[in-house]
């Protein structure tokens, strides 16, 4: 019984701590990001000034990426109409690999192709998934390593805060 109470207590303690996985950015300027999407359309980070941007590096072979994708879709629909966009940067896989993956996992946000790993190197990404939250001015404000339930209230609150310029 004691063990059960301890376990439940741990669950409660862990839940609100989730958003703490977001690490305030203490690094330098935002690296450049200029990549094509799956249709070959070029995207530049500058195109998204005025919006909060989640830049996420991911891969189809990464289990935490697969797990968190549905919550990212929910997050985007939850913030629909607000200045928020997800740019999911794929880590060097082929278009076919991504299209096959899209048949299994619903992900209607923008997927960018980092074919030669240039963005990954510039953004210093060592594990998948790695996420960066940028404010409306294009400055990195938070980073996160690993997967998350992105539509959890704590994350929505943090992202909403970034929509208001300071």
């Amino acid at each position, binding site marked *: 019984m004691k063990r059960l109470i301890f376990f439940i207590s741990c669950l409660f303690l862990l839940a609100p701590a989730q958003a703490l996985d977001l690490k305030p950015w203490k690094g330098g300027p935002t690296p450049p990001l200029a990549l094509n999407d799956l249709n070959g359309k070029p995207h530049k980070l500058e195109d998204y000034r005025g919006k909060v941007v989640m830049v996420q590096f991911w891969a189809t072979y990464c289990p935490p990426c697969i797990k968190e994708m549905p919550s990212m879709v929910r997050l985007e629909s939850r913030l629909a109409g607000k200045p928020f966009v997800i740019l999911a940067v794929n880590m060097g896989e082929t278009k076919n690999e991504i299209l096959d993956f899209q048949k299994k996992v619903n992900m209607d946000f923008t997927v960018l192709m980092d074919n030669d790993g240039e963005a990954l190197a510039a953004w*210093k990404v*060592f594990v*998948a998934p790695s996420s960066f939250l940028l404010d409306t001015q294009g400055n990195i404000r938070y980073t*996160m390593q690993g997967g998350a339930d992105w539509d959890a209230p704590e994350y929505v609150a943090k992202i909403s805060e970034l929509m208001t310029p300071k």
Partner: protein
Amino acid sequence: MTIFRLFSFGLALALCTPSGWAAPASMRMSTGTEISLRTFPGVGNTLMLGFPCDEGLGAQEARSSQALAGLGLEAWLPDMLGSHGLPVASSSMEQIPPEEVAEVIDQAVKQSGKRVVLVTTGRGAVPILQGARIWLDRASPQERAALIGAILFSPDLYSVKPAPGVEARYHKIVAQTSMPVFIYQGQRSPGRWWLEHLKVEFTRGGSKISSKVLPNVRGFFYSAQDPTDEERAMTDRLPELILDAIKQLEATQ
């Protein structure tokens, strides 16, 4: 007649096994730890010391070692984790005493009389390279030639798990390693993009380093719970990959 046959069989065995010796079932360390060994005798002059890893080569360890032994490469698999009651996990790797790894290398070199190559994966690379460093520092120039080098599958050699946007820092053993090293990295892994970066770090210590990206497989393809057809095929090729890497290591010495 029966006695003659028995004698012939015994003689054949003795001839097939260098010096007529039998591989040990365990190794006693100076710390008192008894490290159990799985051994796969081979008739060649090279011994593979296959160390535990955080993801575990699992059943593949034995299968690949058996196949390698058939090709003449003797294989010893010391159970460094089990000997310390450590679970198969990345965090356990930090608790393997490098001193014991050095002793295992020493005993393997002396008992077998063969040239030794080290094989490990993931975070296992840290204690194995540390142990090799200790052994090399103690060995005489003649003895050092007995260590061919190390083959690392998807090594995790960061000092701490690198945070997004922050320059990765490697464990100091990378720059302290001076023996030949061969790295296999799965194409479908973030580590593939940082392989050249890691190789530069290795060259700081004087290591002759070579590598190969394995196409269409993940980092831990050999222990994947959900292997793809390509990963199954690559796992079947592990003995061939190890033999190829040994050739490369020998060529760089």
